[in-house]
């Protein structure tokens, strides 16, 4: 290639923009061509001069500080806000899920504990030689018997025409709280009715529907500040029927 052709490529050569093969060929040409070599030298000198002279202005410390602060104020904030959109709701959900789970577990445990205690009371009573402390089918006898023994009063239903009969009553304790334990009978099935004060509504989380817990059918509800539990091995229908009678009376 003639020098004239090579000289068209000298800028690309000194700027490092020629393909490697072409740069190598030009390099070989330069070793044998003083004219082109001088031309390259001049271009390199000009490049170097402009490179040095061009680095002329330095920003002030104040400007640097201003720019840095403005970026720090907005950029990380933006990033943080981006994270906030994702992270904070996620954390809130996570914590909420954890709390809900813990709460449900606690409630479940508490419910299970209450049912277990009541089931124990029911079974113990059924197994006892003295089923009740006050033996009477008359609610007007049973209810006054509890006066002074428990810190509340309650109403009992009339049972004429119903298959249920009142056997009697005794004082029972649930979590150190005294309450009324009434025994009803239906077709040789004894059903325990427990009535406890529902302080601060702490028993409200217990389900009101009939549930089959600890081998017995249990229905429970809160009425006039009292928590009722109807526990027995009678059928669900009987448990529901007795519960309705008690509700209506309460």
């Amino acid at each position, binding site marked *: 290639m003639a020098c004239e052709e090579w000289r068209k490529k000298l800028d690309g050569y000194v700027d490092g923009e020629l393909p490697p093969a072409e740069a190598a060929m030009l390099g070989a040409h330069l070793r044998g061509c003083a004219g082109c070599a001088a031309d390259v030298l001049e271009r390199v000198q000009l490049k170097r001069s402009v490179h040095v002279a*061009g680095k002329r202005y330095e920003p002030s410390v104040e400007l640097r500080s201003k720019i840095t602060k403005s970026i720090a104020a907005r950029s990380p904030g933006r990033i943080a806000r981006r994270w906030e959109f994702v992270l904070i709701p996620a954390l809130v959900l996570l914590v909420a899920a954890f709390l809900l789970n813990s709460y449900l577990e606690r409630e479940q445990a508490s419910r299970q504990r209450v049912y277990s205690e009541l089931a124990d009371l029911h079974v113990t009573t059924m197994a006892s030689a003295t089923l009740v402390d006050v033996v009477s089918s008359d609610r007007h006898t049973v209810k006054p018997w509890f006066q002074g023994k428990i810190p509340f009063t309650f109403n009992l239903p009339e049972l004429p025409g119903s298959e249920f009969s009142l056997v009697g009553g005794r004082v029972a304790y649930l979590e150190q709280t005294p309450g009324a334990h009434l025994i009803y009978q239906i077709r040789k099935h004894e059903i325990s009715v427990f009535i406890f004060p529902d302080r601060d509504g702490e028993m409200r989380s217990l389900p009101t529907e009939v549930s089959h817990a600890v081998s017995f059918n249990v229905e429970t509800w809160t009425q006039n500040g009292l928590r009722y539990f109807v526990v027995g091995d009678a059928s669900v229908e009987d448990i529901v029927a007795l519960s309705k009678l008690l509700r209506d009376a309460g």
Partner: protein
Amino acid sequence: MSFEDLALPLFDQLYNFAHWLTQDKTEAEDLVQETYAKALRGFSSFQAGTNFRAWIYRILRNSFLSSRTGLKTTVVLEEEGGEGLPAVNTTPESLLIEQANREMVQQALAELPLPFREILLLCEVEEMSYQEIAETLAIPMGTVMSRLFRARQAMRSVLREKIDGGRHGV
């Protein structure tokens, strides 16, 4: 990478480039601040993996061109061809460059028309590749090469005048 990681290391160079464009300290500072503000706002539109340096230099240059000073200094160049760069023997200039001191080169650079000054700064000071320059100035590669050639010729010409003027002045 965050905006901070990409943009802050370019601060010194961006300011230098801005000062060369505006030829004024206060305007350069305003221009750099405006550039960072615009870049920060538009960072979400910056495509990761593309050339951030070319992107932010383009923002700076466009901001300058739309500024009061930029509008006044814009020079429309004659149509530039990408191919067929003239082959010139510049050997006599070799001695000339040797004689030019730093201050003289700075003066010559400052006197160049804006399109020549900026392309020389991007190539020689910022050491951008032709591709980066093409992206920054939004011109084709061929135009980069031809404009660079003409800018260097113009630089030589101004330097020659200065050196000749200096000789005559002695």
